[in-house]
């Protein structure tokens, strides 16, 4: 594939001129002017299979013959017709053949509502089928791995999942077995599909063949409300959509962000909605261990103020901020510490886990850099050890705290999201909203500031954002800080920090902004990350060294 610099090519689609990129295929060229050429097996970031034949169009180069739109590159002066009767007839025929053996599962299929077969059927083939035959039975609900379940009858053999595992996840665990109409996708006998990125195959599967076992039968997609957010699984800060209904968050889908995670996401990220749903601190309470009794949020804040007031200014107060909290919560906690004259500040979080060279970071806390940034903005030294040497402690989220630490403290006030041994040992436990329920911003390992929108709109018990609890305590102590919204909390940090000075919460761009000062000094010594695949306008450019066609998928065709 020539690496000539991309130049502008003039093409005509349905009589309308288009300035396409020389690496575009016909589908991308048509998409530039809003003409939708249907496709199943083509994917902008995967190699070309040309298997589903849905995207056949007529071109001036090959008159009287239909050409696959995904494989053919644009050529200077090429004329493309996408609405001729032959193309329409082919689209209808394609749909009919795809649907011949398709099971009548729409009522119980999770993909119903976002399935491309349904959408294309209504647009291109809205008639009963002409093929009178029995449907072929294939294995259904085969467990492939921890996250993926496969239904061979629904599969239309577009091999997107196979190509994804070969090219992007680089662990070829899926392949097409058997031939002809009996072919289906399978893993190596005895080996599960246990790659860390197996969840992405569920997203790119155009039908309901590959399903997410965690989300299966949980909710219908048209009841879900989708809002953009950032994954809290690790420090990589992959952009996601969190889908929720009422008070429950159901699943995370990757959101396109070229620099951070293109359109992919790891499997742990897809399970980060469980801490939002279960084992939550829901009601503000007072008293340690089993002496705890639920009191209203206002009462809890008054109790906390009573306990903190005598210690204010006399030292012996520590502020613990977990790296799971957003920048706003960190700022509010630091402000509370400054007002209370706290001596020691501690940073903690979930223990670090494994990492790899693509999307997974060792540091399992989304906002470690953000809390450090806030600490520098407030000019305080923040220690990364479990808190000790302080009598009273205010904890913004108790992720890294152990029970022993909490027992040694005289006074322990905690704004916590999930129940753990630290919250059981807290004098005052204030329910804190999760990152998916509040507005805020996070800084990922690379120093990219990214914005988070609330996705689970329903109020969960007394839950409130962490910065709101800190603000209530400040007001109780008599300080007048107007922190009435997330952007006001963001301003707390932005005023004091150099590189956030000209930013406000609303002005953070959707793709996030990289803070130059925070760039890692040297590139991590691990294997270099794969070059980001070419932007979507160049589908033809398969990653270097990747063979195209038969060899790519093990010569199974």
């Amino acid at each position, binding site marked *: 594939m020539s690496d000539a610099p991309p130049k502008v090519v003039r093409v005509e689609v349905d009589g309308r001129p288009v300035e396409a990129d020389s690496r575009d295929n016909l589908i991308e060229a048509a998409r530039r002017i809003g003409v*939708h050429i249907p496709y199943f097996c083509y994917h902008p970031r995967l190699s070309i299979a040309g298997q589903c034949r849905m995207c056949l169009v007529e071109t001036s180069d090959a008159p009287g013959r239909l050409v696959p739109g995904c494989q053919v590159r644009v050529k200077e002066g090429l004329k493309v017709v996408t609405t001729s009767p032959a193309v329409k007839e082919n689209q209808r025929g394609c749909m009919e053949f795809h649907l011949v053996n398709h099971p009548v599962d729409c009522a119980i299929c999770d993909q119903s509502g976002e399935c491309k077969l349904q959408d294309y059927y209504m647009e291109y083939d809205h008639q009963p089928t002409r093929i009178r035959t029995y449907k072929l039975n294939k294995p259904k609900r085969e467990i492939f791995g921890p996250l993926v379940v496969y239904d061979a009858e629904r599969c239309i053999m577009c091999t997107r999942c196979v190509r994804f595992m070969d090219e992007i996840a680089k662990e070829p665990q899926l392949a097409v077995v058997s031939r002809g109409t009996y072919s289906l996708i399978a893993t190596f006998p005895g080996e599960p599909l246990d790659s860390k990125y197996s969840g992405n195959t569920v997203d*790119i599967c155009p039908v309901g063949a590959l399903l997410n076992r965690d989300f299966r039968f949980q909710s219908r997609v048209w009841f879900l*409300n989708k*809002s*953009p957010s950032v994954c809290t699984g690790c420090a990589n800060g992959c952009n996601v959509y969190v889908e929720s209904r009422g008070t429950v968050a159901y699943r995370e889908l990757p959101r396109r962000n070229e620099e951070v995670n293109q359109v992919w996401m790891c499997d742990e990220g897809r399970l980060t909605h469980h801490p939002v749903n279960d084992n939550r601190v829901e009601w503000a309470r007072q008293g340690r261990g089993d002496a705890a009794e639920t009191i209203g949020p206002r009462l809890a804040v008054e109790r906390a103020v009573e306990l903190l007031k005598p210690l204010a200014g006399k030292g012996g107060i520590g502020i613990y901020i977990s790296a799971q909290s957003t920048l706003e919560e960190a700022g509010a906690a630091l402000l509370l510490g400054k007002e209370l004259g706290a001596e020691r500040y501690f940073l903690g979080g979930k223990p670090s886990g494994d990492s790899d060279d693509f999307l997974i970071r060792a540091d399992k806390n989304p906002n470690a850099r953000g809390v450090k940034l806030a600490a520098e903005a407030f000019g305080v030294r923040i220690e990364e050890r479990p808190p000790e040497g302080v009598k009273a402690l205010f904890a913004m989220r108790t992720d890294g705290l152990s029970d022993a630490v909490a027992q040694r403290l005289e006074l322990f006030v905690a704004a916590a999201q999930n129940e753990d041994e630290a919250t059981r040992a807290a004098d005052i436990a204030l329910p804190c909203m999760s990152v998916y329920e509040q507005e805020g911003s996070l800084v990922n390992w690379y120093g990219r500031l990214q914005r988070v*929108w609330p996705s689970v*709109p329903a109020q969960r018990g007394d839950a409130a954002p962490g910065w709101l609890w800190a603000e209530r305590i400040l007001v109780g102590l008599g300080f007048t800080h107007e922190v009435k919204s997330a952007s006001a909390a963001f301003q707390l940090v932005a005023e004091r920090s150099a590189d956030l000075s000209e930013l406000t919460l609303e002005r953070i761009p959707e793709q996030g902004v990289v803070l130059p000062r925070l760039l890692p000094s040297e590139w991590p010594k691990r294997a270099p990350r794969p070059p980001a695949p070419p932007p*979507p306008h160049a589908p033809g450019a398969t990653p270097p060294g990747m063979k195209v066609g038969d060899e790519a998928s093990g010569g199974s065709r």
Partner: protein
Amino acid sequence: MAQALIDLLRERHPDAIVSTPGHRGDEVAVVRRERLVEVCRFLKEDPRADLKLLAQIAAVDLLTYATEATGGAALASIEVPAYDLEHKRPVEPRYHVAYNLGSVTKKHRLRLRVELRSDDMKVPTVTGIWRTADWWERYVYDMFGVEFVGHPNLTRIMMYPEFQGFPLRKDYPVRKRQPLVPELDFPDLVRGPGPGPGGAGVPMSQTHVGRANVDPDAYD
């Protein structure tokens, strides 16, 4: 013969007509706001047009014309995810006011359309020409907040005077009630807990926002 009507209108008031986007056999003329009264008087009195029957004055709010899919219920629920609310790209001109006219003798129909920006929503009244416009203009004012300059009694007709806001605008939630009499609050047993979509705020079948704020072509 309605096409003749358009030509008649063009040659008598060439500068008043902006465009004539006819659709499915309906003749439409987009009229400049300042020339509306003049054009209406001409259409009513001219024997060739003779449009004596003002059937209806209707209005459309084009805020979500491009983005609203079937599941646009996120807009309808009271607790809208902040992302959706914030990312409503302003659409200008936002309001269309449509005057559906008809002739009893000549048996033809015409629709005049006035396009309004959201910051200045004033339209000259036509109550001087057709007396039936009085109530229709009050209806459009009540539902959309379009002010008809010179209307004798421009007050709310459907809603009660204490009602805040204009209900048929696309950013007014479906279920935002402003009760006049203190109401007992019953738990909404049908729709389940929480005000979010699917919760008490929005009926079960109308909440799929899925594709509303996702760019389907980017990476599916």
